[in-house]
């Protein structure tokens, strides 16, 4: 799990009209499930295409197993891709799509004096058949060999695309928003399926998505990107519990982000009240962003709370109520299992481990206020498929 496989060193991707990737540094371990997460236009697809060999970075290095591969064309990389909208060959049936890479022959690499020379060797038909059928079994598509692509559902096409890539036994599988075109239920099933396949095959997955739930559910490591830069790299738990800045906090799940001042180690002041927290190492009186997750807030009686606020809106969500509470003009989202009608004055209690303090960043003040609750919620809840046109438009 710990061996490093791919490294991006100071990768920059610039076009006439702007910088798409701004000094990306990233390493990816063998057998890791790594997710590039971010809104459309953040540079995640560009990063993936650089690893796949479809783009060459303007500057910086791409290393594979320690070897620089900046100019190695895609067909010579031990990497396969599952494309947005799958890119299955419509003129071939399921079997032939999966067999496509195998029919091109396998590369036999001879290393002589540190110089490697590769040549293609034809794979016997019997072996092709065996491997294709095995692969179709893994993706649960046995019996579909003769089907034409157009006669498959979205989920089935998805499986073909995965089989087609994996049958070549790549060291790394790149997946570009592979579940984007599927509906909710199917997405959930396919998430489990993908995770299972990754563990079964024991290879590295690099997964691109803008859906934070998907990223948290599947990944070993999540890389949050925005504006062509990496905002944070960490395990799903790290990313969720210890976001580095307001962007990450807001993009990963719901958060209330409040201005605070660090009065001392483990003491932060919000709304002129001091709270105990677990964060330290800040300057004294340093202005900070404070993240409070909606599910971490305890609602107590008005006179027992550390802060006092008025409920301004309640929405039933099934498992819980989304309750918007006004504290001194600043609106928080609190998720509770009890119902508090609009107009109720409530108190809240915050445990020290519910408070997460972040340094101020360029994103401060942009997120985390629920004053315009409904619109913001819609925006966040919008898991609809958005193809990253801006990034793909730059193929030249």
């Amino acid at each position, binding site marked *: 799990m710990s061996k490093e496989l791919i490294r991006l060193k100071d990768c920059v991707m610039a076009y006439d009209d702007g910088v798409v990737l701004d000094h990306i540094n990233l390493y990816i371990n063998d057998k890791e499930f790594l997710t590039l997460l971010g809104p459309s236009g953040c540079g995640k697809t560009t990063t993936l295409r650089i690893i*796949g*060999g*479809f783009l060459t970075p303007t500057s910086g290095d791409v290393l594979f197993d320690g070897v620089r591969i900046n100019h190695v*064309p*895609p*067909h010579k990389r031990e*990497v*396969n*891709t599952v*494309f*947005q*909208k799958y*890119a*299955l*060959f*419509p*003129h071939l049936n399921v079997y032939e799509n999966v067999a*496509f*890479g195998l029919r*091109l*022959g396998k*590369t036999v690499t001879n290393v002589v004096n540190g110089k490697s020379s590769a040549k293609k060797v034809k794979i016997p038909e019997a072996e092709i058949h065996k491997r294709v059928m095995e692969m179709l079994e893994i993706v649960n598509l046995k019996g579909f060999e*003769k*089907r*034409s692509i157009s*006669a498959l559902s979205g989920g089935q096409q998805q499986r073909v695309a995965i089989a*087609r*890539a994996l049958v*070549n036994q790549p060291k790394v599988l790149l997946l570009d928003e592979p579940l984007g075109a599927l509906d909710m239920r199917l997405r959930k099933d396919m998430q489990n399926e993908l995770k299972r396949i990754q563990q079964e095959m024991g290879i590295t997955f690099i997964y691109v998505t803008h859906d934070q739930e998907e990223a948290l559910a599947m990944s070993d490591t999540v890389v949050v990107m925005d504006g062509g830069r990496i905002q944070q790299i960490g395990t799903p738990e790290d990313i969720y519990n210890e976001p580095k800045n307001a962007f990450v906090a807001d993009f990963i799940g719901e958060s209330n982000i409040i201005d605070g001042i660090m009065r001392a180690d483990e003491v932060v002041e919000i709304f002129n009240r001091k709270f105990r927290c677990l964060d330290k190492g800040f300057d004294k009186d340093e202005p900070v962003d404070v993240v409070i997750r909606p599910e971490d807030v305890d609602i107590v009686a008005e006179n027992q709370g550390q802060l006092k606020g008025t409920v301004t809106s309640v929405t039933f969500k099934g498992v819980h109520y989304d309750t918007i509470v006004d504290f001194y003009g600043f609106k928080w989202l609190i998720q509770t299992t009890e119902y508090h009608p609009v107009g109720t004055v409530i108190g809240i209690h915050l445990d020290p481990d519910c408070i997460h303090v972040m340094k101020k960043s360029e994103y401060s003040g942009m997120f985390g206020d629920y004053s315009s609750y409904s619109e913001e919620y819609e925006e966040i809840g919008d898991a609809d498929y958005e193809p990253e046109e801006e990034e*793909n438009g730059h*193929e*030249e």
Partner: protein
Amino acid sequence: MSLNKKNSLGNRILIGVVFFFLYAPILLLIFYSFNAADSSVVWKGFSLRWYAKLFQNQLIIKSVYNTLLVSVLATLIATVVGTLSAIGLYSMRRKFREPLLTINNIPMMNADIVTGVAMCLFFVAALSGWNYLASHYRLIIDLFGTQYRVTFHQLSLGFGTLLIAHITFNIPYVILSVAPKLRQMDKNLVDAAQDLGCTWPQAFFKVILPEIMPGIVSGALIAFTMSVDDFVISYFTAGSSTSTLAMQIYSMTKKGVTPEINAVSTILFGVVLVLLIIVNVREIRAEKAAAKRVY
């Protein structure tokens, strides 16, 4: 089927009348090719004499041969060049592509007679330049001490210029029918092929070509049809030594068309009709078979 499902009797009659108008002269022409008399007004009984005479008429046979040869060659070359160019054009940045596509449209949108006279002027000028050089200079190649003299032939308008003209007006039709297929093709298909181990040429033959094949076929079909049907551009670029069927017919219309021409046209029409029917029947069968396989 996009518009309303049910078609009215009036619409059917309209279709019938217009197609009658389009086909009546052709049917008449076919009819009179079997006429024993040498008139296209009076019917004197069934006869194949014009078909027999046709094969003795060297002028007509030669012109049919020229027409088919120039059409086949021009179609082949235009299809290959047009397909590659369409791929090239669609890999270009917009600012280069747009003006090139505009120039590409010129032969298609311009009046045939303008294209014809323009090419005529150009060929005459280019050939007279060449002929001047050919009569004043010769190339002397010194090969291992032996000198070879290469003299240049005098050239004039003829089959070569005719072929160039046909290729030139055919390519835009090929590009026009390949381009939509390229635009519809999923951009990632080529990436996917390369990702799976294809070099670019392999990706071209295994993925791009099968994807755009319908466009190439219909482009080639249109190009061939345009070539066979063309009169005006051929008329201005073929010179006096080479003659296509259309030019032959034109010169005959001045003196009176003999039914041999009707006979040769009937044969051509019949061959095309049969070919189209075969192609269509096969397509329908293939579709039905495909439909069965799926369900």
